[in-house]
């Protein structure tokens, strides 16, 4: 009995550590994106702004449990929280949104199109379903080199991308090859304005898993603890050699598709439903309620996030954009084909 009690206490401590850590990334993401939205409304950002409000718990719970420097993480456009948890420097995000020439894409692409594939985070193209097979390829290469070891790769998409041919092809391929792939599907009820009943006809997206011969986990994406436990299970199964895992988080996007969109297509009824609960508030109440964190500590997390965001934005705002006249206008990498 004593052993069992000890184990429970150990599990609880582990969960509390992950929960507070994950909450930290959620706060950082929300703070950054609120600030970026304000800058966008002031007309200082060219191009779109896509935020993950309402999706932070689901996003960060996956990435905070991946092994940085080892695993692969291909984020969705609403994965600011996951990116931060996976180790993306905040300055990369600020520079990409603000068009700094010092950003990872040197002004060649903007907003959410940033990454560092050498660090395991490939840079997305806008056709998000197409990123799943790229993650498959990264895992496949490591297996060919006998360096797969304990690695898992996560590809994050939304409900809309599950309707693409690329999703089907890549998931089927991953299943055939039994790759340690986790497909995280944030079912936020709308692909831009299109509701799920025009996107798929199965009862639950997770029902698709059986058809591909892979494991599926369906969770409440607004609940931090459920997200942590769901992804922990998926990651451990994938690491153990059980092949691809699908994790579906049911939640509601608490913003427009982009900041240009006020989302009139979301009904008040849906907004006030369980799906519309703010995962960040819920997480805060949970970690305080469980005494994993005090109110003061939560305030400190917020203050620290605000300071980090301000520093990153100030830095990026002070930097110049790219110079078209001295820009390297070469699409080729090979020296013999460069102009």
């Amino acid at each position, binding site marked *: 009995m004593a052993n069992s009690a000890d184990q429970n206490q150990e599990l609880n401590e582990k969960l509390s550590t992950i929960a507070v850590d994950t909450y930290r990334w959620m706060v950082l993401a929300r703070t950054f994106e609120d600030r970026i939205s304000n800058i966008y409304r002031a007309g200082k950002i060219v191009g779109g702004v896509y935020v993950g409000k309402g999706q932070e718990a689901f996003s960060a719970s996956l990435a905070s449990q991946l092994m940085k420097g080892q695993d692969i993480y291909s984020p969705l456009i609403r994965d600011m929280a996951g990116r931060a948890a996976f180790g993306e420097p905040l300055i990369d995000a600020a520079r990409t949104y603000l068009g700094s020439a010092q950003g990872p894409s040197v002004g060649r692409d903007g907003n959410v199109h940033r990454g560092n594939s050498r660090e395991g985070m490939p840079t997305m193209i806008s056709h998000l379903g197409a990123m799943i097979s*790229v993650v498959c390829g990264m895992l496949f290469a490591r297996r*060919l080199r006998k360096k797969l070891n304990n690695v898992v790769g996560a590809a994050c998409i939304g409900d809309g991308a599950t309707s693409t041919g690329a999703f089907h092809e890549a998931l*089927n*391929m991953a299943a055939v090859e039994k790759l340690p792939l986790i497909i995280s599907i944030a079912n936020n009820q709308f692909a831009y304005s299109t509701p799920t009943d025009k996107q798929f006809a199965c009862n639950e997206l997770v029902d698709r898993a059986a058809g591909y011969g892979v494991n599926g986990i369906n969770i409440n994406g607004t609940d931090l603890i459920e997200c942590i436990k769901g992804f922990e299970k998926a990651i451990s199964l994938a690491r153990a050699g059980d092949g691809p895992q699908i994790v579906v988080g049911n939640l509601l996007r608490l913003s427009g598709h982009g900041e240009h969109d006020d989302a009139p297509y979301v009904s008040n009824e849906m907004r006030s439903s369980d799906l519309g609960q703010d995962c960040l508030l819920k997480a805060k109440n949970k970690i305080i309620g469980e005494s994993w964190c005090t109110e003061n500590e939560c305030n400190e997390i917020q203050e620290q996030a605000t300071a980090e965001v301000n520093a990153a934005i100030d830095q990026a705002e002070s930097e110049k954009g790219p110079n078209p006249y001295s820009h390297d206008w070469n699409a080729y*990498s090979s020296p013999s084909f460069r102009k």
Partner: protein
Amino acid sequence: MSISYLEAIREAQSLALENDENVFIYGQDVGAFGGAFKATKNLFQKHPDRVIDSPISEDAMVGLAVGAAIEGMRPIIEMQFADFSSVGFNQIVNQAATLFWRTAVPCPITIRLPSGGTPGSGPFHSQCMETIYAHYPGTIVMTPATVEDAYSMLLEAIAIDDPVIFCEHKYLYYHLKSDSLPKQTLPAKSARIVRSGRHATVVTYSAMLHEALRAADNMKNDGYEIEIVDLRCIKPIDMSTVLGSIARTGRVLAIGEAFPWGGVTSEIISSISSEGFNLLDAPPVRLNSIDTPIPYHPDLWRYHRPTASSIEEELRKLIRE
């Protein structure tokens, strides 16, 4: 020793697999079966870990190649037919072709497209797709016309740090033969003057080179000397060799097997018109397939594509101008 165009492709892949552990082949039926055309015959037996059957998923095949390239591998993707690469179009032009530009990470992948018409193959097993992929920045598109080039250019394609669309012509697979594989080779980006002449220049590539050579042979009896430029690589195009030839002949016919609208031949004519207009003694001319889908029946198919006789007819008109 005699080696076919197809065997040269197989030998190049065999050598690449032998020399570089980062090379692997992924495609439908490429493994133990050796590929639909046997371009990978016996390669699986030698390298069972690196010659791998894929599901029928062209999109995912190219996506996988991009992911593997990010990790430093040099994948070769075999499309069973060039026509089916349309299913992988998005991954080729948006993912692979933009990767280096967006991220500074090279994308050393080779996508082999068994291309072009053969009698009885019909609309979906006969297409020439080079124009489509050449349109996008970041791709290199090779169109070898000889056994030697099939070998050396494929080796170069695999070694290049950019995505290469390798258009190998099915019509040449079995019947085009050479005595040996080349020791020294011309870089893939350089065009080659295959035949010298003074009355007109033919600019062409891939299987059409051989139709043009037959036309030039026929016209030789009448005293016409036709110069023939084999582009070899259609993206980028070696325009200096093309313009150098036109400077000698003053007349040009550009020939391609692909559909006529907005293709390699129109690019050639456009470049000549703007860069070498003063070299021309007659309006530049081009010849492509008829602007319809590719027909099944052998009699229709032969009429649909340029042939030695239709090329000869165009050349005689051009020289009379």
